[in-house]
């Protein structure tokens, strides 16, 4: 059952990677990056997932032995935040690029080279 | 303390060598004339020439080095002579070896060139250039011939080479050294400044080359030097390849034999240009020299 999560996560990562590698538009590449991060997060969560257990919120009937591993979830939260920050940063930079270059085509954003 | 016998020997040999050197020069001219079916000058003609030059009432100089050059050349020739064993007179020869003598025989050239260059004459400069290039060209086969000799006899000492030849037969009887002798003889032609390698003076081309500015006593010095040099070089040849000599007469015969070979070669060949000479020397004599050297290793 867990392999399904893994499969999904890796698919997301590969889709993201595909977008980065093939799409010429910077925005699309950034979307790819986001998708990839999502995939990674999914993977991270699924690492801590134990089949048949519930969320690691200590409440009635859910003790340490009934909950999934909480650490990956904490990690993923952090990672999501980081991902958001990165994306925000990237998008604002993309704006500047569009301002200065008048395009978002990566083939044309090549002033720094060699 | 002073070895008076040695002093007397030195003086005697010097006088003898100078005289015989002049006679050799005379023989050279005379023989050449006879080959050309002329009467030719008397055999003592070079002595007369030298006396005449010495008797010039005027003398010019281009500066100190111009004067120093001929003096140095003659001094060096005398020094070289003193290190060659002349027949039974050993002189200084036990104190120096083949390499030293070979070098001493080259120094006079430097003297002549110093003087010639300081005269500022373009012909002299051309002569110097040609002289040096001839030397560069001939030095390789020359060196190889000497190396073959040294390797065969296993010693650098001229006196020992002579002694070994006395007991074991002349150098030229050894096949490898015969090859070396051929090489040396070709080089010898250039050392004496005879055709086909008389590129240095080339009278009809560059007006005597290095000698062009010399006259009077300077030229007389150079003539005397040439005589001594001629004697020394022929003696060198005889000592190296013809078994030396036990008395002056034997030596004289061998020297004249050597001289005649040189004259015969000289009288039938035209002159090389300098680059032809260089190419020639680096071709056949060098190959022969290498063969000789490898045969004696």
């Amino acid at each position: 059952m867990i392999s399904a999560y893994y499969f999904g996560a890796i698919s997301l990562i590969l889709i993201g990677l595909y977008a980065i590698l093939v799409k010429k538009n910077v925005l699309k590449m950034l979307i790819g990056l986001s998708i990839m991060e999502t995939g990674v997060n999914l993977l991270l969560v699924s690492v801590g997932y134990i089949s048949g257990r519930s969320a690691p919120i200590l409440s009635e009937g859910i003790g340490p032995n009934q909950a999934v591993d909480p650490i990956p979830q904490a990690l993923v939260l952090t990672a999501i935040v980081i991902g958001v920050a990165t994306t925000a940063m990237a998008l604002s930079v993309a704006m500047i690029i569009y301002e200065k270059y008048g395009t978002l085509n990566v083939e044309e954003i090549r002033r720094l080279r060699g | 303390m002073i070895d008076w016998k040695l002093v007397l020997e030195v003086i005697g040999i010097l006088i003898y060598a100078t005289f015989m050197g002049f006679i050799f020069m005379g023989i050279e001219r005379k023989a050449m004339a006879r080959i050309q079916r002329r009467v030719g000058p008397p055999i003592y003609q070079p002595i007369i020439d030298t006396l005449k030059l010495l008797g010039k009432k005027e003398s010019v100089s281009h500066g100190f080095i111009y004067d120093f050059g001929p003096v140095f050349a003659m001094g060096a020739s005398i020094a070289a002579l003193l290190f060659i064993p002349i027949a039974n007179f050993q002189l200084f020869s036990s104190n120096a070896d083949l390499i030293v003598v070979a070098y001493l025989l080259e120094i006079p050239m430097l003297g002549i060139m110093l003087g010639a260059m300081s005269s500022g004459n373009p012909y002299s400069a051309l002569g110097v250039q040609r002289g040096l290039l001839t030397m560069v060209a001939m030095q390789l086969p020359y060196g190889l011939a000497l190396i073959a000799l040294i390797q065969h006899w296993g010693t650098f000492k001229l006196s020992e080479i002579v002694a070994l030849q006395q007991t074991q037969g002349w150098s030229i009887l050894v096949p490898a050294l015969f090859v070396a002798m051929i090489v040396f003889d070709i080089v010898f032609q250039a050392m004496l400044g005879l055709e086909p390698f008389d590129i240095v003076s080339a009278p009809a081309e560059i007006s005597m080359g290095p000698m062009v500015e010399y006259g009077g006593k300077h030229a007389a010095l150079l003539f005397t030097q040439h005589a001594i040099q001629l004697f020394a070089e022929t003696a060198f040849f005889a000592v190296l390849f013809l078994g030396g000599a036990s008395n002056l007469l034997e030596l004289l015969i061998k020297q004249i034999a050597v001289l005649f070979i040189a004259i015969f070669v000289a009288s039938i060949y035209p002159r090389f240009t300098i680059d032809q000479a260089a190419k020639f020397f680096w071709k056949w004599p060098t190959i022969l020299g290498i063969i000789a050297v490898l045969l004696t290793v």
Partner: protein
Amino acid sequence: MSEMKEMRNENDGVISYELQEFKLFEPLFKWARKKSLWIVAFCTGCGGIEMPPLATARYDFERFGIMPNPAPRMGDLFLITGYVTPKTLKRIIITYEMMQDPKYILAHGSCPINGGVYWDSYNVVKQLDKYIPIDVAIAGCMPRAEAVMDGIMEIMRKIEDGTADGWKRYRENYEYYRKNQDELFGEGWREKDARRWLAWI
């Protein structure tokens, strides 16, 4: 101008220079001078062609110790073999002054004596003796090899009895020769004629 002066002084050196006197060996040297005449062969005009027979087997002047030598400093005998133009004369004078005393001049044929067949040519020196001292002149147009030989023998005879004194006359009467030369070529002709002649150096 200073250069010209320098040149003048330098030529004066040829004259003012004190000659060596050999007291003891003088007879020996005189003999040697006679027996060893080196020719500065300066072949002007048509006489040059008379020289090869002299040098080769038929006459062979080398048996008298005579030898052609291209370098003037060593030469003793200056052969002027035929007519002399002013241009040639300049070279003759310069070469002559370069030779070292004692030195002798042998003039070939009629032309150096009086112009010969070129007696009325505007460009031939009529009387060479005015410009440089001639010791022996051989008449004829051209003199045959025997005659040249005879001239040389004459020089040798004159050397022996000391009458071949052209070099002395040139020193003593330098002002005269100089005047004649300058009249013919104009003052300062040496500098004027100097050219860059070895362009390739």
